[in-house]
């Protein structure tokens, strides 16, 4: 089966000159990867390389047989919009937009008309239908986390990246978010890459392939 994402001989050189090498990886559709490591271990750099936001000094990131480095910046942007879902550590919900408006952002970013039916479906699925017209500051922490997840899923990505998704959550919300990520990835057949150093997440990630970054 064609790997959703494959990392081959990847090295990244920081602006200060330091260089970091990453192990080779090959993730099949539906597979889950847990990137574990302390702060500064390169988790975020690796996510940025996978998202095509950083250019490696050596090696390749191959997505469904296509090396990202061979795409021009415009094609990489389009690829990211179409195939990648991202849940950032800080949620970065737009304070000016309602929950529904935040769900429409991935479409606006790609210059597409929002799919109202898909948005409604996700709002229902993630228990957000009742707060669809609320602004982010009117949401609970758990609700806001689910909105960020819904935004990442709305365009049915093949690769779902989550950067420290439990950083500001209590135990109950951490468990809920992890369950939702796994459920969403399962239902969409998406490959999930989760970067964390949170022991609570690590304890609940039996289904993940583990990669420990030094």
């Amino acid at each position, binding site marked *: 089966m064609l790997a959703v994402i494959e990392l081959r001989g990847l090295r990244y050189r920081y602006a200060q000159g330091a260089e970091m090498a990453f192990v080779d990886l090959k993730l099949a559709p539906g597979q889950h990867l847990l990137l574990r490591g302390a702060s500064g271990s390169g988790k975020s750099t690796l996510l940025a390389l996978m998202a095509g*936001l950083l250019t490696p000094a050596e090696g390749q990131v191959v997505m469904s047989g296509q090396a990202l480095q061979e795409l021009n910046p415009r094609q990489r942007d*389009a690829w990211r919009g179409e195939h*990648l879902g*991202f849940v950032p*550590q800080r949620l970065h919900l737009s304070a000016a937009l309602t929950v529904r*408006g935040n769900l429409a*952002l991935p479409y606006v970013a790609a210059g597409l008309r*929002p799919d109202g039916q898909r948005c409604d479906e996700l709002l229902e699925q993630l228990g957000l239908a009742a707060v669809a017209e609320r602004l982010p500051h009117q949401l609970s922490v758990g609700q806001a986390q689910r909105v960020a997840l819904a935004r990442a899923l709305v365009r049915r990505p093949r690769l779902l990246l989550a950067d420290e998704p439990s950083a500001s959550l209590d135990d109950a919300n951490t468990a809920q978010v992890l369950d939702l990520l796994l459920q969403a990835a399962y239902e969409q057949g998406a490959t999930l890459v989760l970067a964390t150093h949170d022991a609570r997440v690590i304890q609940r990630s039996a289904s993940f392939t583990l990669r420990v970054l030094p």
Partner: protein
Amino acid sequence: MSLLKLAWRYLWAQPLTAGLNLMLLSLGLAAITFVLLVSEQIEAGVRRDLAGIDLVVGAKGSPMQIMLAGVFHLDVPTGNIPLATLETLLAQPLVARAVPLSLGDSLRGYRIVGTTPDYLDLYRARPGEGRLWQRPLEAVLGAEVARKTGLKLGDRFAGSHGLGGRGDAHDEQAYTVVGILEPGGTVLDRLVLTDLTSVWAVHEAHHEIHEEDRQITMALVSYRSPLAAISMPRWVNAQEGLQAAAPALETARLLRMVGAGSEVLRGFGAVLLLAAGLSVFVALLHSVRARQSDLAMLRMLGAPPWRVGVLVSLEALILAGLACLLGLALGHGLTALLGQVLAAQQSLRISGAWLSPWEWGVPLLALGLALAAAAWPAWAAFRLDVTELLQAPR
């Protein structure tokens, strides 16, 4: 949701800043629109009222005053001149026509002018209702006079002594309305016209005056040849008691004076616009910084850099578009208001409905200003480092 709608939401997420910028931009554009509309209408009105009048001859005094009193009926005349002056002027080979005007009375502030039908010919005016005067104490009303006074054909009225409408009424010498002129947008709209003998009759009711002692207020002269412009004013000024006023020169002087006022107002508008432009620039730059994560998220979600730059520019363009509509509306509104004030003073005709061929410059100005104000913030948005999204909390 489109990019435009997103820009709209972002813009109004800070309603106070957006409202203030909108107000500044609108006021600047309104000031410029107002100056444009008013100065154009004054110039057009002046051109209309000057129709074919090459020289105004009045009693010794200020040429500007003679021109304002004789052509635009805005100032008081400098005095009277002998009726015989008319014959003297017509005897000059370079004079094609000399139209006498005799002033002195008014009807509710509108001047009663004793003249000949030649005065109407100057403006190609004709009665829309009724006819011209045929005998003394028959009057033809300008369109505005008829509308404002409510007088109709056959009605009688008495003129008040003096030009301000507050003098004693000549009750024993009432005029009969025999005609109402079609509206022409000229000074005739604001006048009551009658023949010279009527004015004399009203003022000679109690004492007889010999023909050789009769006077007129001024004469409007049309030349046979443009060459007369060199010699005729000099010749008139050399005559005892006579003063020549060349309307072309005097109106040019007048418009320069009015122009100075316009320049001040235009400058004020430009300062307002500059302040608005700077304010929009600062607001957008601040907004790009405040919404750095929003914009970076858009990039993460697949928006190419140019789309993020366009989003920021759209905020400025929306402001400019709204300010343009408000500025034009306000500019026309202020012009209409000025028109009403001037109409109440029976002065120049200014309309808020006037459309200037140069008005397209207002949206263009707003567009240019918006693009200039948005250029740097849009560039900052274009160059945003999206990898910051992936970093630990700031």
